[in-house]
Structures are given as C-alpha cells and as structure tokens.
C-alpha cells in the first residue's frame, strides 16, 4: 500500500508545485491546499500504514491488544491539519487584501506596484 501511496503523494506534490508556480494568485491557493494534504499524507505514509488497528487501548486493559498503528505520526498530522487550516485562512485573506490594494491577480505584476 505504501508503494501506491508513494506514487500518489508524488503526484500531489507535483500538482501542488505546478499550481504554486502559476502567476494567477487564485491558483496559488489551490496549490497550497494540495501541498498541505500531500505533506500530511507523506508523514502518515512513511510511518507505515496499518489496517483496522487504531491506537486505542480497550476498556479494562493496560496495553493495546496486538500491533497497532503508530500513534505519534497521527498526533503530528492531527495538529498539522488544523495548523494548515489556520495558515490557509491567513494566506487566503492576505491574498484577498493584496488583490484589493494592488488590483491585480498576476503575481508578476504585483512586484511592480508600490503600495
């Protein structure tokens, strides 16, 4: 499964970079979203993927039964998802403000505006 994921994540990263290289600022936002998803999946995939064994300890036990999925990457990804949302909100509003002030959505033209 990880092999398949490696290819999928590669596709996601490629798409993200391509979108972030566009001059249209709206495409940049789409690129950012794909990029954060790709990064989350990357952390999740390289730690090994396990089916049907969530990192929970059953009632009345001290330790989980048998092998479980690694909880640490999950914790990392969980906060990363929420943070990515915060960053996305920030950048989307920033881009919107920039668009209002310089009145262009072309990144290459933004550099020539003095505001």
């Amino acid at each position, binding site marked *: 499964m990880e092999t398949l994921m490696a290819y999928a994540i590669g596709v996601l990263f490629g798409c993200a970079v391509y979108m972030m290289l566009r001059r249209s600022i709206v495409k940049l936002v789409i690129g950012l979203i794909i990029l954060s998803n790709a990064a989350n*999946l990357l952390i999740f995939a390289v730690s090994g993927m396990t089916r049907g064994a969530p990192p929970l300890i059953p009632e009345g036990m001290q330790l989980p039964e048998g092998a479980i999925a690694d909880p*640490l990457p999950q914790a990392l990804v969980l906060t990363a998802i929420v943070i*990515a949302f915060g960053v996305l909100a920030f950048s989307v509003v920033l881009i919107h403000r920039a668009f209002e002030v310089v009145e262009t959505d072309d990144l290459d033209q933004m550099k020539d505006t003095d505001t």
Partner: protein
Amino acid sequence: MLYAVLSGFLLAALVPLVHRSAGQFTGWLLALLPAALTVYFASFVPLISGGEVLGQQWTWFPGMDIHLGFTLDGLSLLFALLISFIGTFVLIYAGGYLKGHPDLGRFYIVMLSFMASMLGLVLSDNLVALFVFWELTSITSYLLIGFNHESEKARKCALQGLFVSVIGGFFLLVGIMLLGIYGGSFSIVELLNSSEDWFSAAPLTLLILCILGGTFTKSAQFPFHFWLPNAMAAPTPVSAYLHSATMVKAGVYLMARLNPMFGEEMLWTVMLTLFGGVTMFVGAWLAYTHTDAKKVLAYSTVMALGTLTMLIGIGTEYAMIAFAAFLLGHSLYKGALFMVAGSIDHEAGTKDLTKLGGMRSLMPWTAGAALLAALSLAGVPPLFGFIGKELMLEAVLSAGPLQGLVVALAVVSAMMTAAIAAVVALKPFYGPRVETPKQPHEAPLAMLAGPVVLAAVSLLFGLLPGVPETLLVTAAVTAVAGMPLDFYLSLWHGFNLPLLLSVVGLTGGAILYRYWDRTREPLERLMTRLDRFAPETGYFRALDGIIWLCDWQTRILQNGKMGNYMIVLVMTTVVIVGYTLAAQHGIQFTLDWQDINFYELAIVALLMVTAVYATTTRSRLGAVATMGVLGFMVALIFILFSAPDLGITQVLVETLTVILLVLVLFRLPGFARYSTLFEILRDGFVAVSFGALMTVLILATLDARMFEPISSYFVEAAYPEALGRNIVNVILVDFRSLDTLGELFVLGIAALGVYSMLKLRAEKLND
C-alpha cells in the same frame, strides 16, 4: 570581580533615575562608582605586586567550555586601574563639558556601559567572554562617536569605526576559535600554562594573522589607523577616554596578553615590530601636518599605539619594561591633553591650533596642566613620559634584525612628537593673543579636575619612579614577559646612547616646532596629493564595492517574481536531495503492489485524478469542488488505515476550508491564464521533477528503517501513567503538550492576523 564588572552595567540602567534627581551633579555622583572601583582594584595592589594571580570562575555555558572567568594579574590590574581611575575624571569632566546637553543622560548610560565592558575585557580569562566584551566596546564606541547623531559626519565616522573594528572582530573570533580548537581550551591562563606542543599541528600562520587582524583594527595600526582620527567626531570626554586611554588599547592589551605564547614565533615578532614601527612613524607624521587640536592628539595616539605594538614585537626585557612604563605614561598624559583640548574648544570656541594663542593668563590652571602633560608627551625629564621614552629608545637599540629601521623611525617619531607636544601645549597659551570666537575664561572645576590630577600624577610618577614601579609596573611586566624580570625605573641612567638619542629627539623637536608654521603647509599639501593611496580611500572603495555587489545580487536573486524564487528553491532541493539519495542509497527500491484492496486503489486513484483535474481545469468553482473531494479522499485514507481521529479532523477541516474558500475566493477574479507555452513546459518540468523526487524519497524511506519507532514508550505509558486510552490524544495533550501549546499560539496568531487585516480595511473604507 564579577560584581565589579556588572556594577557598571547596573548603574548604567539606573542613570535615568539618578539623572532626574541629581541634575547637574550627576557626573560627580556617577563618578563615585569608578572611584570606588579604583579603590577596590587598588586594594589588590599589594597582593598582585607580590606576584600573585587571582582567578574567579562563574559557569556560563559549561557544555561549550565557556565560562565567565576573571583573572587579575599585573597586566589586568594595570589596565583595570587605568580604566577606573581615568573613568572617574572623565565622568566628572563630561558633566561640565556637556552641561545642559539634552542627551546627557544617554551619554552617561553608554559611557558607563563602555567602562563595564572594558573592565570585563581586561579581566576576562575566557577568550569567548573576552570577545563578547570586545564587541561590546565596539558597539558602545559606535554609539559614542555617533553621539551627535544629527550630524551626518558623526554618523559616518561612527559607522566607519564600527565597520573597521567589527570586521577585525570577525577575524579575532576566527582566531579565538582556532586557538580554542587547537590549544584545547578557551581559558587564557590554561593556554599560557600549557606546553606549546600543539603549535606544530595548528595552522599557526592563519591563527596569528586572524588574531592580529582583530588587534590591529582595534588598536588603529597602519593601515587601519584612519578610523581613529575620524572617531574624534565624538564629544571630547569620549576621545579622552575611549580613543586614547582605554578602548584603543584593547588590541595592545590582547597582544601583550598573548605575547608569552607567541613571543618566540618569528611571524609574530616581525609583524608586530614592523607594523608597530610604521604606525608609530605614520602617526607622528600625520599629527605634525594637522591643525585641529583633537586630530593632532588622535594621530599622536596612533603613534603611541604603534610604539606599544612595536615594543611587544621587539620582545626583549627592556622592551617589556618600556611597554608597561610607556602604556602607563601615555594613558595619563594623553587623557589630560584631550581634556585640555576639549576645554580650549569649550571655552574659546575653536580647536584649530593656528587660530589660538596667548590664553595663558585667562586659563592658568588649564595651561599649567597642558604644559605638564605635553612635557610628558615630549619626554622631558622629570616627567614620567621621559622614563617611558628613554626605555623605548633603549629597547629599539636591541631590536634584532629590524634594528636599523626601527631606530630611525623611533628617532624621527620622537622629534615630531616633541614638536607636536610643543604645538599643542604652547601655541594656544603663549605668544600673542589671538581673537577667538568666544571670550575664553578658566574652565569650571569639573573640567579642571581631570587634566590637573592626571598631569600631576605624571609629574609625581616621574619624580618618584619607584612608586609606580613597585606597585604596578613590575607585576605587569611579569605578565607580559611570562616570567619575572629584575629591574628598576629611574630618571637617570647615566650618559648612554638612549640619552643621546633623546637629546637629539628633543632638539629636533624644538627646531621642528620653530618652523611648524612654515613646514606644515607644504607637508599637508603633499599628504592631500597622496590621498589617492591612503588606506582610507581603500576603505571607501571597498564600501562602494559592497554596495555594488549587493545591488547586483539583489537584482539577480531578489527580483520579486515569486515563480523564480520557487523554481530556485525547488530545483535546488531536487538536485541536492536527489544527488544525495542516488549517491547514498542507489535507486533500488522494494516495490510492493500486492497489498492493495480494490477500494483502496479506487480511493487513491480518485485522489490523483482530483489533483490533476484541479491543476488543469479552467473553472475556479471546479477547482474548489475538487479540493473538497480531495480532502474527503484523504480523510477516507486516514480512516481506512487506523487513524479515526485524523479522519474526523480532516472531514471537519475540509468542510470549513470550503466555507472559507467560498467566502473569500469568489471575491477574487477567476482563473486567469498568464503563462506562455514555454513557462508551462518549464513549470511542468519543475513540478514533475519535484513529484518524482518525493516519490523516490518515500520509497527510499520505506526501505530504510534505521531506528525503532520512538512511539513504543507512548503506547506503553499511555494508560498506566497518563490514564488515557486514546493514545493520539494523550500524546497531544499530555506527552507533547508543549508542542500543542505552541501550535495553539500559531493558530491564535493566524486568527488575529486575519482579524487585523480585515479590520484595517474596514477602518480605511470608513474614512
């Protein structure tokens, strides 16, 4: 001793309070600290002159062998006493000189911080701590030269001083690091006591050159001497203190401190003797051609610094004794002379020596102090300066291979110095009265105390040379030479060669003074013509070059096109990581296509399709919708592979993301197509390379399991210790809660950023 050093910084912090309550007596009040420090350090004199070395250590960064260690031996003690003793009078003097200045408070703050840094510098045993104090003196010096920050000239001069000494400081740091790495310790005492076996293994030439780079710039040695006269843009008390008596001697101090270690090295002795000798001559020469009293004194300071460096370089017994005596003498008379020059400027309104004359009857005390100090500068018996000069001449006569050169330089310099001394002390006070911009009268008590006391000490030490010898000089010489030497100071050494040279110097000086008016101008014209070759021109060239370079590289690298930045970043990553991967790991991977269910395959395929669709579609709404699909596919993957928490979070966040995009994105224009075909192909190539790199990287990572996962501890401790069954949540809120807390703050900052961006606009629209 730590408290002695820190007290200066502490008092500096309290200055605003003191200044508010004490008003114009602030200077006197603040001077109590250096006065107390003088007494404190003086109390060590009996111990130290008895040959003891005191040391104290405070741990600072134990892991890096950096301690706040202080050592008090003869050399440190001599410097510490000079710093606190002269500091006392400079603070008092500043109160009079800058009376009523609106920024006087700031002046005291920086001055006291400087004093504390300088004390730290000469007392530090650890080279790293010494470097910290060294840079602190550079910074405080910068602030003091630029004290009149509204004058462009002052700002420029301050920056020049800072640049020169900081660049030197950089070399010094490299030197210190090399010393620490190869010598095995950052402690000066340990380095001096260790055997010098490591010399053969160390890049000794580089090491010595780096250290000298630091000391030469700090102590204004040729060809870095130009910053010191420019530093005269500072108020006079600063010139008297930093740029003659203390800071510029830091370089000399460090060379003297390290001399026992490098004294046997040919490179060290030759560099020091040669550059010191040349600096001595250049300083004397330039001093002779100038008319601004402070500039003349500044160049004569350059001369003195050169002399001191040369004496360390010569390294004979006599040279060491001469070094200590000359150092002491110079600090006393030069401090006094600078204060006199400041008083003249303050009272008469000019410090141009050609426009001054006949003020003796108007300022008798100042004139008297000036005369005594100048006699000491010229090296006339019975002042202490004579002893210093006599010993210096004695030393150059034993200078070894460079003897001929240095003797000639020393005698010519001595002549010119004598002439300068006469010019500074006699011109303003004797001869016919010259009209000055202000009607001069005697300087106030605050401005008299310093010059008079310092000049009187010069005379006293000259008449009773045994006093400074037993108290200070012997121990200092022991420290510089690395072993005790047997000697005594006296005015009269009998009829010998040094005395003859001394007489030649004084006679020559008298003649030069006689014809100063006539010879000076042609010399000055000559110097103006030589300006093109002056080191300062090189400094300006270098400055222009740096600006040009920055301009050029900014246009290349920082062209403001985000696409270019991204391409550079991504391709650099691809090349570097890709190369490392291929070199370290090869391109053999285990591919496992068996372990895939059909619905998993479907989900992943849909994931890839949505991503590609989002990049190719020309519909904005379509792209946003696919983002939703993509997010839900990711959530499904999380849920299928044992991460329920992630799945839930992903679904919720995805919903909110779509809401966010709807709220904002639809107020922006649609997908525009700006790119040419070439750009599309180029970006496509970059994107495909990066995607391929990531795939390969993941495959390589999956193959290389170098360590056991660290999460087994979390799994085992989750219930027994943290009382939680959901291990992911336990990690988030218990084991790694500090990380989570940090992330919460990131969220908060992002939210506040959004809020302020929108709020700001609302207010603008209302206007």
